[in-house]
């Protein structure tokens, strides 16, 4: 069954390759574990006990890829416990679940198990968490936290926690008032509110344990990201690259909520936490106080570069990896220089926040190419040896494969239509900017691909060690831009760019790709009419899930891309699907439906698309979305009958 709108592309060469795929499954240790203890495992020597599928044990996460390729392993793999403790599932950010009850064979029988209305009708980007027999759901502003009891039929609410963030915070949230989820650790649920608070809530009682104010809406700051808890520290970054914030990543003590360290993403080295350990791979990232000297005087203080995306953690190297957002304002002529450390991938020591390396993906960003996308940590066979890499489908349209110990870029290949750059120079690490597409004051530059949301925005991809493929939900948008002078007035937008977006070549706006990181190419690809703004989920049953903005929740064969099942939900889907094993022992898939986010604000915030610059220019590309869906905010849970 193939979606009428979707088309499938299967590389014929890969069909053959697929036949040769062999995979190992490894057993996990322990079942029904409810604890959130951070296990560290030596990535080089993963546990190797075997277990048959469906026994409730997790899969180990080693896969063999086709033709002559070696094994891809996921570092620090934890045994599958049927839970979902953090939005990315594991520290390597794979969004791979070892559960395999739902398979390519039976996925077509998926049925709605139950649903739950959050009562909030804005963009639902969060991933529900499943801890033991409880599911936790965070809503967009007003950031209500629900605990749902999975042990009872229909998942009734256990409790609800309302942090009551400032209503005014909505006025500085650039692209809908979303929240990307919570994290569980040490018996507490940690999450952030739009008005810059990080809150720890007792997972059992729903009582607030602590809350810490981290930022100031009067300076344009908000927090929308899901925190990551690493070694007793809650890592939080801010949003607001469109409002002249000063970006940072902050670590809070998970017990007390005290700030352990904060690293800014611009300014002198001391503020960026660049010290003696800092060894960036590329020359242009080396030097003293680059966070000051690569900006016009004082402008680094309003230079954006928040951290509103995803953080990964390699326990073996004891490094966290995350990317920083775009520099502000968008108008590049107002900030000559590389604008470090915007659009940069950082590797930091989670204990001290010290930077170990940094790689600026997009120096002197021209098109709002944030660098916040997820880094998927893999141990990859690469030219005859195993390299510890991070793989990142980036906003600028390239899949970066980087050595995660040094930051060296091993490969950068486009996975969408890209004309803003002409390739990445692996010697210097810098993308070759296409001068023709460089915005200049007094000029309208047309047909820049990808558009500001990039080839892929926040929507996280998933990696299956079983197929060796990366599943990338993304979009196909191009744009016309006109830079105008941006004026910094604290607490108001600081953009300086008029944008008009539209569908890229092909006319479709969304794509769901399966990408082979070793062969460095697409294996299959499904196109969607609207941007695929939801996250991806892949399971050991070789089923991959994602949702569309017109409300279809889809299950695809992870190997072929063939559609197995789909269901139309009450509103467009921009959330992150998760899967878990409920106390009844069955595997379920959960997704929040509620259109919104940047492209969905046209519905959730009632944007008027007669102004094609509305919503930072995305309204133009999304003008037919209101015909396809309406506001919503409902959790849907599907299972096999």
């Amino acid at each position: 069954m193939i979606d009428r709108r979707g088309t499938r592309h299967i590389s014929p060469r890969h069909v053959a390759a697929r036949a040769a795929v062999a995979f190992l499954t490894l057993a996990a240790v322990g079942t029904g574990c409810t604890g959130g203890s951070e296990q560290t495992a030596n990535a080089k020597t993963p546990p190797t006990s075997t277990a048959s599928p469906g026994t409730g044990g997790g899969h180990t996460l080693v896969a063999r890829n086709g033709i002559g390729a070696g094994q891809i392993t996921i570092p620090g793999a934890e045994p599958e416990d049927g839970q979902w403790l953090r939005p990315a599932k594991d520290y390597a950010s794979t969004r791979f679940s070892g559960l395999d009850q739902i398979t390519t064979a039976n996925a077509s029988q998926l049925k709605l198990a139950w649903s739950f209305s959050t009562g909030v009708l804005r963009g639902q980007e969060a991933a529900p968490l499943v801890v033991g027999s409880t599911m936790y759901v965070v809503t967009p502003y007003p950031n209500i936290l629900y605990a749902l009891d999975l042990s009872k039929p229909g998942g009734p609410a256990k409790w609800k926690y309302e942090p009551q963030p400032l209503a005014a915070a909505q006025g500085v949230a650039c692209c809908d008032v979303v929240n990307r989820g919570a994290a569980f650790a040490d018996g507490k649920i940690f999450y952030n509110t739009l008005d810059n608070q990080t809150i720890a809530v007792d997972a059992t009682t729903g009582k607030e344990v602590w809350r810490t104010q981290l930022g100031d809406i009067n300076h344009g700051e908000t927090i929308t990201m899901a925190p990551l808890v690493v070694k007793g520290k809650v890592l939080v970054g801010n949003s607001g690259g469109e409002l002249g914030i000063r970006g940072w990543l902050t670590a809070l003590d998970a017990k007390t909520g005290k700030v352990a360290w904060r690293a800014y993403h611009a300014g002198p080295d001391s503020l960026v936490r660049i010290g003696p350990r800092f060894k960036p791979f590329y020359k242009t990232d080396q030097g003293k106080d680059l966070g000051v000297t690569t900006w016009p005087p004082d402008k680094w203080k309003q230079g954006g570069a928040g951290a509103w995306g995803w953080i990964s953690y390699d326990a073996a190297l004891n490094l966290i990896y995350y990317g920083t957002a775009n520099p502000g304002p968008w108008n590049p002529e107002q900030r000559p220089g590389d604008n470090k450390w915007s659009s940069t991938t950082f590797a930091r020591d989670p204990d001290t926040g010290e930077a170990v390396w940094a790689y600026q993906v997009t120096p002197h960003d021209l098109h709002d190419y944030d660098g916040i996308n997820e880094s998927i940590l893999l141990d990859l066979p690469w030219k005859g040896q195993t390299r510890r890499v991070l793989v990142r489908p980036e906003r600028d349209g390239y899949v970066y494969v980087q050595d995660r110990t040094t930051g060296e870029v091993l490969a950068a290949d486009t996975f969408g239509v890209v004309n803003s750059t002409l390739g990445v120079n692996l010697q210097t690490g810098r993308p070759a900017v296409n001068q023709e597409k460089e915005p200049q004051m007094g000029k309208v530059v047309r047909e820049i691909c990808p558009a500001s949301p990039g080839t892929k925005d926040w929507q996280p991809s998933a990696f299956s060690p079983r197929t060796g493929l990366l599943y990338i939900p993304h979009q196909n948008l191009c744009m016309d831009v006109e830079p105008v002078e941006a004026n910094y007035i604290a607490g108001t937008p600081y953009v300086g760019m008029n944008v008009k977006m539209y569908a890229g070549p092909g006319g479709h706006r969304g794509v769901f790709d399966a990408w082979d990181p070793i062969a460095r190419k697409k294996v299959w690809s499904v196109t969607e009419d609207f941007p695929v703004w939801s996250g991806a989920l892949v399971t050991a049953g070789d089923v991959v899930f994602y949702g569309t903005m017109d409300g279809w929740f889809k299950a695809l064969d992870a190997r072929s891309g063939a559609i197995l099942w789909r269901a139309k939900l009450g509103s467009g889907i921009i959330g992150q699907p998760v899967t878990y094993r409920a106390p009844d022992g069955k595997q379920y898939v959960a997704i929040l439906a509620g259109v919104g986010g940047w492209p969905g604000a046209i519905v959730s915030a009632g944007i008027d698309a007669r102004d094609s610059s509305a919503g930072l220019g995305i309204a133009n590309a999304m003008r037919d979305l209101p015909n396809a869906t309406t506001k919503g905010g409902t959790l849907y849970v599907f299972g096999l009958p």
Partner: protein
Amino acid sequence: MTWAGSIFDTAGTPAERIARLAWFLIIVSAVTYLLVLVATGIAIRRARARRTRGDLADTRPETAKRLTRNVAIATIATTLILLVYVTATALTGKAIAWPLNARQPLTIEVTGYQWWWQFRYRDSVPSNWLTTSNELHIPVGRPVRVILLSNDVIHSFWIPELHGKQDLIPGHRNTTWIQADRPGVWKAHCAEFCGHQHAKMQFDVVAESPAQFDQWYRRQLASALPPTDSAAKRGHDVFVQRTCIMCHSINGTEAGSNVGPELTHIASRPSIAAGSLPNTRVNLGRWILNPQLIKPGVRMPPNALSPADMNALLDYLETLK
């Protein structure tokens, strides 16, 4: 005829060459003009004489022949003069073109706004890019490439002592160059009609020794120091909590808007209001209170500040050296 501010009061090579050409043309024109007048005068006198004699008009063929010859000579002379003119123009035009072999040029972006100027000095290190308003300093002896941009309508950049005009046209990036061969302080004007306050869209040009220039540059690059005394502190608060913050920027404070001129070192400037008022405390106060009385139509609104607030604000602005 080298009165101050005139095109003959030259201080740079291009202006110097143009002035030479202009003198040449003026002299040639004056001589030509005199010849025409003399010819006309003689014609009138001769004709008058003929009239007094009672003669008829002279239409004899031999006269016509002579006249034809004279007209032809005059025409040929005119043509020759014009040839010289075109050649001189072309030579001067070449001489004032941007010296391609210029070493270490300074590059300045000039942006025209209704009705003030912004200057942005480029540098290889971005944090040394300096932005100033309505005051242009250049080092003597160093060629300066000027990139001309406009934020709204067409303006024209003109420092008579240094070079001719070049327009700032929205949608175009024009360039020109200047070089001061001697120190000096001049006033420059917008030379293309740009609306209500075209008349008072001026800026101060200071050409100084490279050492002085570097000193000035370093000082301008620094952020404003935080206010120390209580009056200035209050003035700072007035600045960031009242209308000022919507349009002006002071590096080192919250104020970062570019709607109006940036004011980080306003106290060090010789004039305010785009070169149209000497920078004194009284003028500054008058200006802030009601700019419309001084420059009707200017985009800065009247600001109703209490006397105490106004004094504090002036105290603060005076600290911005």
